[in-house]
């Protein structure tokens, strides 16, 4: 498999807020908004962008890159832990 080329990745956006209006609002408001948990079954999964390691290289990945596919997102406490 081809190595991902990006050597030093651009900072990822983290959570991506839904509407344009959110982005133009005051930064603090946006941050407060981000902090709220907003997931439940039957509701759209909040989009995000994160820096990723894959195929020996680095790349920024968005959840919305995977539209039209089944996706499993697995959070875990940390690398080099035991379970």
């Amino acid at each position, binding site marked *: 498999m081809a190595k991902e080329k990006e050597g030093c*990745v651009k900072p990822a956006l983290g959570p991506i807020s839904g509407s344009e209006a959110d982005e133009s609002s005051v930064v603090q408001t946006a941050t407060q908004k981000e902090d709220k948990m907003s997931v439940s079954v039957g509701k759209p999964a909040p989009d995000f962008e994160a820096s990723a390691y894959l195929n020996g290289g680095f790349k920024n990945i968005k959840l919305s890159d995977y539209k039209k596919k089944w996706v499993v997102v697995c959070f875990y406490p940390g690398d080099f832990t035991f379970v």
Partner: protein
Amino acid sequence: MSAVAARYDELKSLGVEVLSMSTDSQFVHKMWQEEELSKMVKGGVPFPMLSDAGGRIGRIYGVYDEEAGVNVRGRFLIDPDGVIQAMEILSPPVGRNVEELIRQIKAFQHVRKTGEATPSGWQPGKTTLKPGPDLVGKVWEVWKP
């Protein structure tokens, strides 16, 4: 992670993409892959390993532990419309069951395709339920635990 990686071919054959995520940087992911995961699973973890710096994404998904500064074990199944169909959140000491994840994926894919419902513990080929007025009070006739 290695347990999911070990079943990756099966997940792939179901058309499922896996994204793993912790608060570690992508650089630490690289080291973990090279130093340990690649020795646990042949070829190492085949899916993207994402970095959730500062737990910003974990907070929105309700899995960020403010005191510990890490994301707990949270697993979210998202359908092709981008809608969350299943979620499971465990505290750190207990690992997940990939078998149950795969069972749920098969059930959700079946439901999406047929509009039927699957009873508790359903496996492909087993009885499904066709919800509607005729089934009210009659589930016992077609299915028992």
